[in-house]
């Protein structure tokens, strides 16, 4: 067991290296660096000036060396200009170069400085991950119980009317991507001119112009049902359909197993058959799927946060990518790798605990 976890962590670190190197290489291609120089210094720079700016800021050394500096395994660059002033990667403006550390990279906890947010990346990341964490928490809190309930209800009597109605619902929601369902939900519930808000407004049922606000910016400070309902539902709807389908498939399969017949012919009532005998076996497969949903949520988060202007991880990623913020992008990719691999680790370990056959086999 311990070996397994260690091995998985090893894989995780390797993957993180590979992925960050790819991102690092791509963002450090010469045209991109030129763009960076122009946006940081002056838009109308000559080519010579660009080259010297890059040299001054440590971008002229080989890619591998710079990657090592970013990681913190190669000493940060230092440079002495004509006036004798020493600048360097690890030397903050206004500090004495002699006291500056030799290494400053991810391993030292220094994620660099964000060019878009004008803040250290670690601060940006902490704030945005916190915000996204709340969003994910509420999405999971809505999505998991709803989808399992729907899946179990439709799977326990395959082909019944309940099954057909719920399956139709699940297929519809899972066939609607977030950018479509988000727009539909806004048009339906959060528009002053379309959907149900004008009707409710005329009837005097709501005081404001719209039923729900069209943005979730205010949720950054204070999460309420009103400002969080739309973003949470947009992400959750897609997942609900997906997990419900999985649960249903698993449940219908379990219900045809012989041990279910055994239970039924023991005289166990239908409710108890479902609750005691079928449920645990039926949840083994969806558990993996739910864990796989976490990385998928990152994807949904990018769209929904942008759509509802909620300044979380996804929004930060979009901003960083749009504005050539290399350090922030790199940090985001590291976070993504860890989210994906940690959830996989949890899902594998959890699977073993749900399924006694694996634990002791």
């Amino acid at each position, binding site marked *: *067991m311990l*070996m*397994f976890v260690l091995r998985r962590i090893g894989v995780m670190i390797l993957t993180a290296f590979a992925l960050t190197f790819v991102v690092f290489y791509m963002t450090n291609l010469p045209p991109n660096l030129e763009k960076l120089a122009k946006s940081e210094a002056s838009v109308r720079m000559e080519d010579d000036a660009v080259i010297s700016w890059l040299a001054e800021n440590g971008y002229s050394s080989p890619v591998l060396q710079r990657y090592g500096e970013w990681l913190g395994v190669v000493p940060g660059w230092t440079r002495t200009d004509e006036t004798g002033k020493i600048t360097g990667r690890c030397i903050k403006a206004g500090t004495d170069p002699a006291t500056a550390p030799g290494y400053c990279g991810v391993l030292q906890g220094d994620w660099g400085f964000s060019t878009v947010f004008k803040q250290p990346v670690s601060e940006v990341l902490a704030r945005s991950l916190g915000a996204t964490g709340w969003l994910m928490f509420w999405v999971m809190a809505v999505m998991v119980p709803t989808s399992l309930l729907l899946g179990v209800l439709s799977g326990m009597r395959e*082909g019944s009317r309940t099954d057909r109605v719920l399956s139709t619902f699940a297929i519809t929601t899972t066939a609607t991507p977030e950018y479509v369902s988000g727009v539909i939900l806004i048009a339906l519930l959060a528009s002053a001119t379309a959907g149900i808000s004008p009707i409710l407004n005329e009837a005097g049922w709501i005081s404001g112009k719209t039923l729900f606000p069209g943005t979730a910016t205010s949720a950054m400070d204070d999460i309420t049902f009103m400002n969080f309902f739309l973003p949470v539902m947009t992400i959750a709807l897609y997942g609900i359909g997906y997990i419900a389908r999985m649960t249903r498939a698993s449940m219908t399969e379990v219900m045809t*197993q*012989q*041990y279910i*017949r*055994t*239970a*039924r*012919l*023991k*005289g*166990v*009532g239908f409710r*108890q058959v479902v609750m*005691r*005998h079928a449920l*645990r*076996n039926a949840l*083994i497969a969806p558990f993996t799927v739910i864990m796989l949903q976490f990385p998928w949520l990152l994807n949904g988060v990018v769209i929904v946060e942008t759509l509802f202007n909620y300044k979380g991880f996804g929004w930060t990623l979009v901003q960083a990518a749009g504005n050539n913020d290399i350090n922030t992008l790199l940090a985001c990719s590291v976070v993504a790798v860890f989210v994906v691999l940690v959830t996989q680790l949890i899902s594998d370990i959890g699977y*073993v605990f*749900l*399924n*006694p*056959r*694996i*634990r*002791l*086999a």
Partner: protein
Amino acid sequence: MSEPWDPSKPILEIENLSISFFTRLREIPAVMDFSCTVMAGEAMGLVGESGCGKSTVALAVMRDLGKNGRITGGSIRFKGRDLTRMGEEELRHLRGSEMAMIYQEPMASLNPAMKIGAQLAEVPMIHRGMAKDEAWKLARQIVADVRLPDPDRILNAYPHQLSGGQQQRIVIAMALMSKPALLILDEPTTALDVTVEAGIVDLVKDLGEKYGTSMLFISHNLGLVLDVCDRLCVMYSGEAVETGNVEEVFDKMRHPYTQALFRSIPLPGADKNARPLVAIPGNFPLPHERPRGCNFGPRCSYFVEGRCNAQDIPMVDVADAHRHESRCLRITEIDWSAPPAVARTAEKAEIGRVVLKLEDLKKYYSVGTSAFGGGMKKVVKANETLTFEAREGETLAIVGESGCGKSTFAKVLMGLETATSGKIMLFDENVQSTPIQMRGTDTISKLQMVFQNPFDTLNPSSTVGRQIIRALEIFKFGDSDAERHARMLELLDLVKLPRAFADRMPRQLSGGQKQRVGIARAFAGGAKVVVADEPVSALDVSVQAAVTDLLMDIQRKNKTTLLFISHDLSIVRYLSDRVMVMYLGHVVEMGTTDQVFSPPYHPYTEALLSAVPIADTRVQRNRIVLEGDIPSAVNPPPGCPFQTRCRWKSQVAGGLCDREVPPVRTLEGGHQIKCHLPDDVLASMEPVIKIAAE
């Protein structure tokens, strides 16, 4: 549920029961006009081939026919109350408390994610509202009752931690938790090994006597029914064709199907020349293609045109008998004691030179033990020092229970695995370390295999003819497609399939026909050595005889060496020249069929022989029930592999069995035996099977 009920009345009374399954296309009648009565304390056997509707009857009694099945007529009265008119709630109270069922596959019947104790305790908690700890106490007692060792450990175990035999005992314990009046057993031992089966059968019989439970025992194995039941009902194609006391039906059968069934199974007590197997011609009719009149008509040798297919045949009482009925119009006209008409005696093929020779063959596997990889590597000794020869035209049977290494041996021989050490000589070629992809076409076509399950071994999307031609192409037979096509048709003739079958898809064939295709494929390249791995065990009894005969015929024609792997001792005795008995990777006994089947035995062979149920009332068996399960090959016992279950162990001085693997001893006539028992003890062994004088 303690309404007054007269114990002299039948517990279960099924009258004119008809059951149909409804599909989108049509209504498929599964059971028609079925009647039977089970008295208190009586064990009723339901016998028939697969698809005859015996399991459907059992499920109908439990009223669990699924969504498509419906009872279309008749009544099922349990203790005088009609089950067909009961509501779900009423049925729920009966199920598990007054009627209980034991299933064919114990592993699938137990909930994999629940502890054994919880599954057992549930029954009294539901039906008698018993408190949890009290229910667990009862469960512990019943587990001890079904003779399982260490009940406390078992109650806290999950099903996958038990062996197949233990699981079946748990299923039985579950059925007994509330002391039901009626127990339905649906092929309870089919998935188990013979020696384990013997233990389960004994248990069921004892418990039946102890609790006075009535039983409905469903099986395709006539020998088992003779062991367990008082009365018997033979079913064919959805109808009961004969019912009566077991002895009467066995000795004085009054229906052609029952007679044909008995003639198609080999009996270990009988000689193959005096009593040759007679296969039932034709195939089992599909439910929607049943003939008019007697269902068995088209396959019956007593069939009379215009009478047997004129009207529905009713069940009639057999004269001079007690509760013996038969569904035949010609009961009084047929001479039931006439011996089978076929007396075709085939010349035994000459046994020629040695074609296959094994010396000290070993096959070890190493397996990881932890769920997450890593952990200790363990070695499974699947085959230990196999040494034997097989000659041209000879049938060598390899016998043993699951896990004894017989299939591993076949894999090594075929080249699907390579041997760990030792030698395999095929003709004069050394093949032990040549995997199949490295073997020459010639070697491959000379050494072929017939597989156990004909349903899975044919490609479902390719025609039968195409698959045989493909084999011919691989064996580089013939120069043109026309030549290969002609050869394919010859092969179909060889296995007695109509030539029109060349264009059929495998799904259009019955199990026996598929197995014939498998045989044709194996013989396509003129195979000299054929490994038949349980070739008939997946087939119905009436078809088994035909396929077995076919194999023997081809063998005689081609002088093939047949390695016949089987766990069915009756068929082994019927067709083999020499027998090799395996246990935990060791060959424990080898000799001619007569040597192995008569004393002196190896103690394991003795137990194996005594465990086989025999469908003959004249045979007396000396029953030896082995305690415990087969040890795991991962962790075999020290010394003699069989010492943990051997009843003769005390006869060997000085605990030799615990310490040393016995050497191979050669008795007179080349009879080999791997046992420490001294000669005088071996000589004093009694035959296990005796035929009572008539």
